[in-house]
């Protein structure tokens, strides 16, 4: 009984922290400055938030077939979400969307020059 309680507590903790991560990621998607910065916010949803929520569900899963599917979803997200983010970054770069850059510690953030 003791072990089950500990596992449940860890699962709840993981779900809670994951929910916070997802919220912060979406907040970053809304608050940060330009497309390239917002990608880092979306990255939190894809890695920290999704990973912790899936880990919490994994601990609460009733059956090994369910666990296998959760692990597969995690692996699939770990493979596809960085690829999609990279594809968006690359497409934006090719389309000529200039990132806001901070070139020296004292300078303000400004539109970057081309490569």
């Amino acid at each position, binding site marked *: 009984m003791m072990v089950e309680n500990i596992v449940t507590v860890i699962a709840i903790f993981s*779900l809670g922290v994951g929910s916070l991560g997802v*919220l912060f990621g*979406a*907040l970053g998607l*809304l608050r940060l400055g330009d497309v390239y910065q917002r990608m880092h916010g*979306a990255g939190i*949803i894809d890695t920290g938030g999704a990973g912790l929520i899936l880990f919490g569900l994994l601990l609460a899963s009733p059956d090994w077939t369910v666990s296998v599917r959760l692990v597969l979803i995690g692996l699939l997200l770990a493979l*596809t979400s960085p690829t999609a983010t990279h594809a968006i970054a690359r497409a934006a770069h090719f389309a000529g969307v200039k990132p806001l850059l901070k070139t020296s510690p004292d300078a303000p953030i400004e539109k970057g020059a081309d490569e």
Partner: protein
Amino acid sequence: MSLWFSITLVAIGISLLLALARAALGPTAFDRVLAVNSIGTLAVLAICVYGFFDGRPEFLDIALLYALINFIGTISVLKYFRAGTLGDHVPTEKQRGAQ
């Protein structure tokens, strides 16, 4: 446990609304694609959590499928932005002249 699943679902729902706001605000097309991609990831998570909340983990197959389709959709939209078509890129007469 059910309570915690519903709290997670509410958090995912609020995040979905925030991402939807970004998709509506833009300003560039890539912001919208990024937001839609995040909405897809959040939908995958929501399907998983709802499957547990409802006690029907068969939903996970659908979540797996949604993750795949989300990726294919994002790549296709980006290809369409880049080439103007999902098929082979044939340069127009004007582009051919510029080369």
